[in-house]
């Protein structure tokens, strides 16, 4: 029914996104994954002593109340499991606090998780205990109770109190997150395109794509906009998301807490069409000095050391219709700015590593790598106009644009 063949044939070797500990190393080994996970869970169980408590009542079987309690521990175990997993360091985990926004989020979040956990355990336990205790048994009649006003009042007040307790930190964080950024905040415009991110630094005269560089500890004031459909800007470890809505000027401000060599991973989270799943980006957090250096390099026009003939070949190709290379007459705006494309680690909005081989695949026929890509195929073999030799020259040129 579904013709998956064309896609399967072209299935790209995707970029693995391993972070510091070098996890993502190619093919997915589910056995190893299971083993690791079981280890984590078991560790969590040992750590909380749940297992011991689970085992204990087994020696005194019989009375339904005890058995019920024992079963009541299952939901408790689930909560422990959930908490154990919150700590897991998935590269896009929302529970890793690396940004000021996320730090603020977790203030109400912890309160709410605890309340939710307590309510969850209480209701699961009550359901199981009541179900077991009041099973039909010979000689026992159901008690014909219609209701009890006192109980109703009590369990109206309980959720009211819970909700009130949730509201206080929620509103506190909500208004804190919406505070005006300080005047010296770094201004960054984030512009959503189908399906890539454009980053502009109006004060620094930098335009780049798919790789955001920010200094550690300094508040960044983001203006979030879209030129086509609704996208959403999200780096889970740093901050929650804010949508990029055409027609609106959305703002968010936060700082990254720690500089580190590995990028933070971000992704569009509002469904935006064919390659929504492939609309990814990276955030590099530098120390103040490193950021200064990066900004200086990026603000410069294209590096002059590139070979004249390669540049001419590039400018003769259809590329300049959509791409800009500052210092040349390539000034298209439909696609990412390529002035310093050689300095980026990835291409295709975070899909491929920035290597000559991957660039070749991308330029030859980008939509074979990224479904729906707006960049038409360039290679003659895919219906474009460029020969393999021409593409080679262009790749060399692009790689040199550091």
């Amino acid at each position, binding site marked *: 029914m579904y013709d998956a063949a064309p896609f399967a044939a072209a299935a790209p070797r995707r970029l693995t996104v391993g972070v510091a500990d070098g996890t993502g190393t190619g093919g997915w080994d589910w056995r190893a994954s299971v083993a690791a996970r079981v280890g984590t869970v078991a560790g969590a169980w040992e750590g909380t002593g749940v297992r011991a408590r689970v085992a204990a009542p087994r020696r005194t079987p019989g009375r339904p109340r005890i058995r019920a309690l024992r079963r009541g521990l299952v939901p408790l175990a689930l909560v422990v499991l959930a908490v154990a997993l919150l700590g897991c360091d998935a590269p896009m985990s929302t529970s890793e606090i690396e940004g000021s926004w996320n730090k603020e989020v977790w203030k109400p979040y912890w309160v709410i998780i605890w309340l939710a956990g307590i*309510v969850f355990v209480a209701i699961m336990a009550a359901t199981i205990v009541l179900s077991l205790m009041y099973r039909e048994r010979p000689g026992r009649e159901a008690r014909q*109770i219609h209701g009890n006003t006192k109980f109703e009042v009590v369990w109206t007040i309980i959720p009211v109190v819970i909700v009130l307790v949730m509201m206080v930190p929620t509103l506190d964080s909500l208004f804190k997150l919406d505070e005006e950024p300080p005047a010296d905040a770094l201004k960054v415009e984030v512009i959503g395109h189908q399906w890539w991110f454009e980053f502009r630094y109006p004060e620094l005269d930098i335009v780049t794509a798919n790789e955001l560089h920010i200094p550690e500890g300094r508040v960044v004031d983001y203006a979030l906009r879209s030129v*086509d459909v609704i996208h959403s800007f999200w780096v889970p470890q740093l901050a929650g998301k804010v949508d990029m809505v055409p027609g609106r000027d959305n703002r968010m401000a936060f700082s990254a807490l720690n500089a580190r060599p590995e990028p933070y*991973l971000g992704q569009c989270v509002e469904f935006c069409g064919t*390659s929504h799943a492939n609309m990814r980006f990276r955030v590099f957090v530098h120390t103040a000095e490193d950021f200064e250096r990066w900004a200086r390099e990026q603000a410069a026009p294209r590096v002059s050391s590139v070979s004249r003939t390669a540049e001419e070949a590039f400018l003769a190709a259809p590329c300049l219709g959509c791409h800009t290379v500052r210092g040349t007459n390539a000034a298209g705006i439909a696609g990412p700015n390529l002035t310093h494309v050689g300095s980026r680690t990835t291409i295709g909005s975070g899909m491929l590593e920035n290597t000559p081989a991957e660039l070749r695949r991308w330029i030859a026929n980008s939509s074979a790598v990224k479904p729906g890509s707006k960049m038409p195929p360039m290679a003659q073999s895919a219906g474009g106009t460029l020969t393999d030799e021409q593409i080679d020259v262009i790749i060399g040129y692009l790689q040199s644009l550091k």
Partner: protein
Amino acid sequence: MATVAGTLAQPTHTGVWSWITTVDHKRIGVLYGVSGFSFFLWGGLLALLMRTQLAVPNGTVIESDRFSQLFTMHALTMIFLAIMPMGAGFFNYMIPLMIGARDVAFPRLNALSYWTFLGGASILSLSFFFEAPGGGWFNYAPLSERPYSDGSGIDFYVVGLLTLGLSSLMAALNFAVTIINLRAPGMTMMRMPVFVWMTFVISVLLILALPPLTVGLIQLLFDRQFGTHFFIATEGGDPLLWQHIFWVFGHPEVYILILPAMGIVSEVLPTFSRKPLFGYPAVVFSGIAIAVLSWVVWSHHMFTTGMGSVPRAVFAVNTMIIGVPTGIKVFNWLATLYGGSIRFTTAMYFAVAFIATFTIGGISGVMHASPPVDSQHQDTYFVVAHLHYVLFGGAIMGIFAGIYYWFPKMTGRFLSEALGRWHFWLLFIGMNMTFFPMHFLGIAGMPRRIYTYDDGLDWGFWNMFATIGSYVIAVSLLIFLVNFFRSVRQEPTAEANPWNAPTLEWGTSSPPPEHDFDAIYTVRARDPLWYDRDHGIAPPEVTGEHIHMPPPSYYPILIAIGITLLGVGALSHLAVSALGGVIAYYGVWGWALEPTD
């Protein structure tokens, strides 16, 4: 009961034509139920395909655009073609019986609702032969606009939903009037079974929530067909207006999906606990409170769209308050178990499991009522987990409780309890396997609506786990089908009130005669059959007077065909619309002049 069926029996109609022209609420209920369940299986199949694609990172089973169509059609099918009609099936069959009436207020309108539903469902589902909509079920503009979705998919969405909306509106009007006006003598509002109450609340919600959706769909239709720019920002429109309008409808819609299940559970729990529902007024009023509050929370679906702090704070507070009446309901259900003598039939298993799974969905719902937390949850698998705990753990569990509970009433036969246990446990386990890990995936940062994800993000394990769970659900549904088809072939053995239940639908034979009751009950208490039993009151006497039932009519299906053609015309050629209009008008004319007595 029904001892004198011989003198009262109407000629029983059989054959396809009798089903097409039927105006009997029980038959229409069966039509709704069977159609709804078929669409439920179809929607489930779409989900299995998606789960298969997502089982491993970089899956290559389904390509991107097809995947978008799958998740869009899965949602539309489950919401509009499965859960709502299955609910409508129960309303149709049970409401007149439960309020002691002989039919709904407008039997032909009831038939028209069903056939219009079938027309709208066909338009929506047959889109797979052309281009299925792929913008998600809330179909955000401007992705749904011409420049970004050029194919016919979104047009199928618009026309299908307009037709289905019309059908739901007619059904809701009918049930609102039926419940207000056709109650048996003595059945005051506060003596109505909770299921009837919830049906009433849902009808009111539908009547008030569908018009905003209709307006939004019309504006989208105009944008796409006539070049207006309601939702196109560069031309002065506003994409967020679509979101406001959609969620003004969409949030009440969520309660429209879950309240029938709450009603069913409120019937099943007392019957099998053998004691009245604990705190009946509290359960009823919290249902009403939920319905009222559902009108002032819609923007919590839009916390991340850049609304100001104050609006978000207001909508957050409103949303959290919904947790209070919901909590009251859960506590009262639990208190209904307390002190009971619980008989664990399959229906009761589903009802008790409903309390647990629905509570999980409720808790996660309150969690993202907090805008800061929601900024991390929104559009991730955490939300997918939440909504499936509400709609699968809530609505579907409740509906299965209803199926096992009322099957003997509807067919005169029992579903096998042994197979029922297998069905229940596999479904329960599969459901939790599928949806609970989605909480973890959401917290680990997995966005919803992605057709693929990279290796190395730590999402592989739980995705595989969830996929296995989805196949467990599929197996459990196969067991249910076996159970169903085995049972309907058996000889009818069910007596009038096999569960010893308190409500009026059990006061007539199983299955009920065409005229429902040989004699109309007088209601003296909230649990009429138990009250009569305990006070030694005999069932009402049959007088043998002639009971007039409305004759069958083919005008409903004729009008429905006209309405469907109107919609098809909007997708193809206006001449088809004109033809549809003429047919519909002719149908209405014939309908108006058709003698009903």
